[in-house]
């Protein structure tokens, strides 16, 4: 008996979400490959440089918003159903959020792809950060709004299940898989308020022509209110996998239940009031507020360092149970021949490296060295592009068999895939970081200028361009391997009652040692709201008194 047989209805929903996620991954990944060749001038024959921005938007939106959101929905359906031991409460409601989210995705995708049709008036080359002055077709914004509303409904679905479960289990601790999902969704509720207000209040009226002028600062602020927390919306499900499943894949148990819960509480509290660290170069926001955001961002390093400790300790526990010894020798005893384990472990290593460049980005002064350069995409391809994406791919090797009741096929290819991703991403991201230090801009189809030469700190521009292109190619090969293994297993894997060992052992230090207050969701949600109000009310007031609602007026001192 595996998940499919125990919870057939939930398995169907999770599978539907994964199918959409993988299609988005395939298209978005292909766009990424074309970009890597285009902007490095290795090959520019696929599309012209105007269409580059359509591809860039497609790459960002399909991967960062669509692939992640659908995968997370599938993952949480699996986790909540399994840990509460109940199917979704009402299948009509569950399917309605799935279809609403899919309709929204299709609207958004069609407007983006419209940019590739000659003479089409439907276009949305507004990049993943869709704030003015770039304007998209109204359907782009409406589609995104639908995706967000549907994701709220998905969260409500899981809270519904939890409340029903609570009635039958009044004194039990929230199961850890449900706890992490619910805290992630609470953070999502807090942070999506910003983007919802931006899209519904400003962008849709503006794109329909009802409003002609908007001050760009307000939508930028609202976007980044959401824009940094969203990275934790991607990351927390990866943590979900690292905390709940990776210890078992390593042959051990989660080190501490309490640490896990504390980390998720801190993320709920601190993920949102840090958005100004994306606006260090924006005028119109006092430097004090930016400083506050920087301090909060540095505090956010804490839960990630706690995760480093807990996850590594859990892996070490596994390695020692498998016979590992010594200070570092135990690492060799980890199951480096299991694709699911290798993917998650390498994703974790990449994330530690992403932490280095993240600290640079977060620091107000040093940020100006790399602001809006290709360093930044170099950074987030380590975090969302590997820590999250590779974890999602790796855990699919373990989840998809449970959902389809079929064994994984082509295990050798599945094993090569995460190693290839790690190699390709190191090459690409390393060169992106170095090019960023030389001042090469991000989001530029042809980053070369007449009468001006970039001066790399060492090496040459041509060498960096090739490194990006080769890295991108290896990543594409890795992606094709992943899609091939998953499709083949899904369609033709050997049917089995127990295609994988899906048992998850209890933590070493269990919930009985965890303070009860960590489960008090109302308390933490209220604190999160207060912190957001503290971080945003004063700056917004300042903007209003500076005349944010009088766009087009002359600037005046406050």
């Amino acid at each position, binding site marked *: 008996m595996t998940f499919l047989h125990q919870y057939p209805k939930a398995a169907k929903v999770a599978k539907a979400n994964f199918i959409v996620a993988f299609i988005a991954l395939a298209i978005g990944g292909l766009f990424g490959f074309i970009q890597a060749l285009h902007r490095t001038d290795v090959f520019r024959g696929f599309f012209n440089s105007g269409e580059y921005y359509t591809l860039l938007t497609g790459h960002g939106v399909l991967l960062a918003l669509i692939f992640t959101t659908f995968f997370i929905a599938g993952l949480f359906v699996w986790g909540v159903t399994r840990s509460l031991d109940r199917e979704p409460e009402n299948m009509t409601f569950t399917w309605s959020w799935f279809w609403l989210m899919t309709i929204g995705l299709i609207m958004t995708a069609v407007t983006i792809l419209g940019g590739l049709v000659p003479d089409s008036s439907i276009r949305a080359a507004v990049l993943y950060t869709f704030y003015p002055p770039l304007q998209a077709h109204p359907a782009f914004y409406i589609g995104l709004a639908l995706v967000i509303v549907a994701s709220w409904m998905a969260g409500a679905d899981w809270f519904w299940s939890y409340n029903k479960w609570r009635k039958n289990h009044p004194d039990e601790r929230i199961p850890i898989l449900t706890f992490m999902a619910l805290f992630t969704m609470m953070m999502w509720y807090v942070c999506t308020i910003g983007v919802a207000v931006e899209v519904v209040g400003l962008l849709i009226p503006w794109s329909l022509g009802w409003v002609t002028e908007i001050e760009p600062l307000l939508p930028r602020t609202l976007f980044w209110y959401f824009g940094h927390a969203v990275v934790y919306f991607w990351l927390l499900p990866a943590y979900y996998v690292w905390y709940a499943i990776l210890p078992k894949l390593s042959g051990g148990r989660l080190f501490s239940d309490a640490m896990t819960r504390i980390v998720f509480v801190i993320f709920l509290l601190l993920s949102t009031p840090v958005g100004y660290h994306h606006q260090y170069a924006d005028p119109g926001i006092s430097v004090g507020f930016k400083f506050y955001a920087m301090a909060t961002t540095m505090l956010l390093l804490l839960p990630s360092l706690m995760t480093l400790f807990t996850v590594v300790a859990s892996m070490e526990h596994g390695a020692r149970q498998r016979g590992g010894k010594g200070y570092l020798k135990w690492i060799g005893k980890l199951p480096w021949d299991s694709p699911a384990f290798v993917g998650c472990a390498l994703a974790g290593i990449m994330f530690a*490296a992403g932490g280095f460049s993240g600290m640079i980005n977060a620091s107000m002064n040093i940020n100006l060295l790399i602001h809006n350069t290709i360093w930044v995409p170099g950074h987030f391809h380590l975090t969302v592009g590997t820590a999250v994406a590779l974890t999602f791919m790796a855990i699919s090797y373990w989840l998809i068999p449970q959902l389809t009741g079929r064994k994984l096929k082509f295990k050798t290819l599945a094993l090569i895939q995460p190693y290839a991703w790690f190699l390709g991403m190191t090459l690409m991201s390393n060169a992106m970081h*170095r090019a960023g230090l030389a001042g090469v801009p991000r989001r530029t189809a042809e980053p070369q200028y007449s*009468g001006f030469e970039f001066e790399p700190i060492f090496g040459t521009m041509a060498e960096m361009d090739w490194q990006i292109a080769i890295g991108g190619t290896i990543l594409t090969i890795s992606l094709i391997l992943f899609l091939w293994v998953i499709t083949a297993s899904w369609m033709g894997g050997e049917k089995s009652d127990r295609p994988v060992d899906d048992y998850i052992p209890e933590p070493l230090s269990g919930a009985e040692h965890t303070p009860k207050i960590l489960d008090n969701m109302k308390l933490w949600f209220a604190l999160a709201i207060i912190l957001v109000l503290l971080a945003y009310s004063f700056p917004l007031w300042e903007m209003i008194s500076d005349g944010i609602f009088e766009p087009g007026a002359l600037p005046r001192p406050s």
Partner: protein
Amino acid sequence: MTENHSNSDSDSRNSSKRLVKILVIVGIGIPVLVELMTLFNLINVQIFDDEEVQEQPEPVAEVRQVTEGDTLFRDYRFPVTIELLRINVSAQEWRFELGLSVPDSVDREPLEIELDSMQLNSGKILAAGRNRSWNIQEGHTPPRIQAEWELPNGDIPGTLYISSFQQMQNDTASRVQQEVPLGNIPVRYNRE
């Protein structure tokens, strides 16, 4: 583990071990090597190459660069002032505009101003083409002297060659050419 494993089983176990070894060397070894080389190069350049950089400072251009409001042919009878110097950008074009003005007193004597050629920062040299010279006749108010060039996108003019046919002190007329190194040219974006 136990002896009841068949031969083929242990064969595949060995070959899988070899595969993992290769994957670890290629998939983790090369990345670690790349990062170590980067770190080494960065530290090398940043900390140990500093002196070299300071030893050969870039030669500072002594030439005074000309911008809007500056005067050409300053030492002659009729100085010419640059009134307009800008690049106008719109979705379709990248246009360099130049406007000159001459003193009102010019109407007492003839004056000729000619734009000979222009060198762009990319190294390209543009010849003057038609309608790039102005004759100011005796007794006429000086016309508006303005010229425009469609330049390749992103290219910026570096040097302008202007000549003028001027009356000299000793009542002879002669042609003087001036090389005008252009300073910062403001770029204006035109929303259409």
